[in-house]
């Protein structure tokens, strides 16, 4: 076969493979992705049964049996939502820490339930000096 024709075929195959991979990636990202919302966006947009990723700062927490109850605040608008969560709680989880948790609305009283083991917490920043002094 003519070498230039051979090269053209190889290039076409490679580009087709790259295009297929890119298309699959884009499709998967948009179809499998979930909206990442702040507390105020969640309160406005949440539809019961649909799950969302809630991002924000923990402002309070308490244990209730094996469930963890905490409130997540929108850093800009100072609105917060309650979350009831069961599952692995990462070590860095604490009041004042940024978290991501997959939630869905349960009932009509804006109670959000965190999906099991979906909680990720920002590590205490290595690069933020602590505010404090001695204890």
């Amino acid at each position, binding site marked *: 076969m003519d070498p230039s024709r051979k090269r053209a075929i*190889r290039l076409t195959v490679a580009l087709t493979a790259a295009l297929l991979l890119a298309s699959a990636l884009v499709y998967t990202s948009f179809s499998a992705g979930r909206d990442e*919302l702040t507390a105020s966006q969640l309160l406005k947009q949440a539809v019961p049964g649909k799950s969302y990723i809630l991002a924000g700062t923990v402002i309070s927490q*308490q244990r209730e049996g094996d469930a963890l109850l905490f409130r997540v605040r929108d850093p800009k608008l100072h609105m917060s939502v309650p979350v009831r969560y069961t599952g692995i709680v990462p*070590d860095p989880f604490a009041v004042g820490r940024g978290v991501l948790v997959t939630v869905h609305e349960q009932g009509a009283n804006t109670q959000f339930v965190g999906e099991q083991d979906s909680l990720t917490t920002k590590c205490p920043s290595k690069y*933020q*000096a*602590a505010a404090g002094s001695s204890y």
Partner: protein
Amino acid sequence: MALVGRAMLILGLGICAYGIIASLYGAAQGGPRWVDSGRRAVYALAAVMTLAFVILEAAFLRSDLTFNVVAGHSSTTTPTFYKATAAWSSQEGSLLLWVWLLSLWSSLVLFLTRRRAREIAPYATAVLLGFATFFTSLTVFFANPFATTANPPSEGAGLNPLLRHASMMFHPPMLYSGYTLLTVPFAFAIGALITGRLGAEWIQLTRRFALAAWLFLGIGILLGARWSYTELGWGGYWAWDPVENAALMPWLACTAFIHSIMIQEKRGMLKVWNASLILASGTLAVLGTFLVRSGILDSIHAFGASTLGVPFVILIAAMVLGSVGLIVWRRAELRSDSQLDSLLSREAVFLFQNLVLVAMVFVIFWITFFPLISEALTGTKVSVGPPAFRPFIVPLALVLVLLSGVGPLIAWRRVTAANLRRNFTLPVASALVTLVVLLLVGGVSERPFALIMFCLGTFVVVSVGQEFWRGVRARRATTHDAVPRAFVQLVRRNRRRYGGYIAHAGLAVLLIGVAASSSFQHSHDVILRPGQHASVDGYTIRYVRPVASATAEKISFGAVLDVSKGGRHVQTLTTTRGFYPAQDPTLGVVGRFFNGEEESQVGLRAGLTKDIWTVISPDLTPIQPLVNQGDQVFLKAMQAAASLPPAQARAQITNLFTARDAAIGALAERWVKHPWPSEFLLIISPLVTWIWLGAMIIAIGGVIALWPPRAFPRRRAARVAGTTGPPAPAEVPELAKV
């Protein structure tokens, strides 16, 4: 000393500016003295930055709380080992570490290449000093590690408990060494593109540095994974977190580069590809540094939003635009000298392997940045999370392992049927035997990807073993050496080749561990009282008794667990969760212990076949009333003390802190004497140890490939001793010929 440190940074900035001007002027005028002066500026920068870093380390070791960075990230009670590591736990200290390592590696490469690549070197010097200028500027104008306060606190905030782990001593310096070493081939590639000297010379000069970058970055990534597995209390070693991905992307691109440069050296092919790969690797290294510091993506590592985002975006944009511009400008000179003869050849396998690695980088980049991309396109951040990686990365990893086995076996240029039969029969047969055995074992066939990985892993290990065996046999035929000596000589005489083979075998072992541990893991989240037990994957784990400890630094609640199988004792494990006091003075004196950092100590039995991993998550609800009551009592006592004369107040507060320690001790005692149910995460994971073993094998292979050839130290020794002999010609590579 802070003043001296700051002066060193400013002096460093001046040295960078001078070095860039001298190098570029020397290159433009053809003046070797200016070029040499520019190179010496890099040595001077290394000296200045070393002094600055020593001053910072000394401040940490002396617990000099007048340094803001020391007060914010260390304390007088922090163990010495962690005081030393605390220097790079801060934004300021880590930036200084970056520029210090950059100056050291830059000095090393420019010293070793001082008689070579006279045209490329000045531009490479200018680029390296450009990076140094950028990072030194950050420490001078945005994140000054030598900022001090006239009123230091009586005690520092201490090092974050999660960072008190042995691997944290090495993880950041390893990663930063990898990142900074990647700037070396990047700089020489820029120099080669500017001067049009696009042969194999710049590759030979910097190949060893690219390999070192790959090695350090790989070790850094694995230390991070190990830290995550034993410290973060979630039972995993990889979470596809943006910061993890930030280190993995340049490592993958560098892996592609150190393979594809062999084709340019042997066949003069893939010039544009190699230049693009190393420019991409360098840019991804800076992107990784940026991701760690900007906070633009939500990450479990949480690197709070900082002011460094804009400067980094400008640098990355300049790197991307400059790289693309230079490649386009030199596209004619970057044409390959020869063409691919056959798709069934070693160079074709290298090319496929490169495409797979680049596809992995692309997938990781896309999914990592997808929240930002989606926000830009739709106005809403969309997260896809770790499951989105698997459908792409798992098949690509399988192909990668297959190619890493095929590569060493297949011939250059064109394969023949005889070559195929001779080299592939045993590895393919071994893979098929593995397949049959695993299908008979049962349970494995339910996880087809893991099954394929086990077979391909066997194929790679056997193919590498076969290559070693043939090499040893051939050597013994000529030298009649004993097998061990023949083996050592074989590796010594071709370190690059056999080091690479060892790394391939290590990769296979590592990915077998990943496939097994992610496909056949059994985990159980359970609430137990002392005396109760749970069963996981045939193991019985019994909560024997609670344990606790209390100090002014932390309070720990834990449990002793007995692990048995079939009535036979296997191991006794202890897992604890430590609660460190918050630094917020508005919180109660007792309550702040339960509002600060938490740190899990994992109860782990690591074995060659299985890991038994346990962690406790104590329920604090039963002691909450006591904590609240304690806070009230101490608040009243503190208020009373505040109304006393200063001397009495100080004495009273000292007494109160003694009472606080007693109260904390009482809480610990309550946990032991009146234990209540606690939540445990119990995980049985097969072959996790293989991941760490595989990583060690890869590292050994990398070190062997990196090790200088025998001629190098001998020649240097001869020079030092002043012995006469044939002088090394200017073109003899000091670095490259492996």
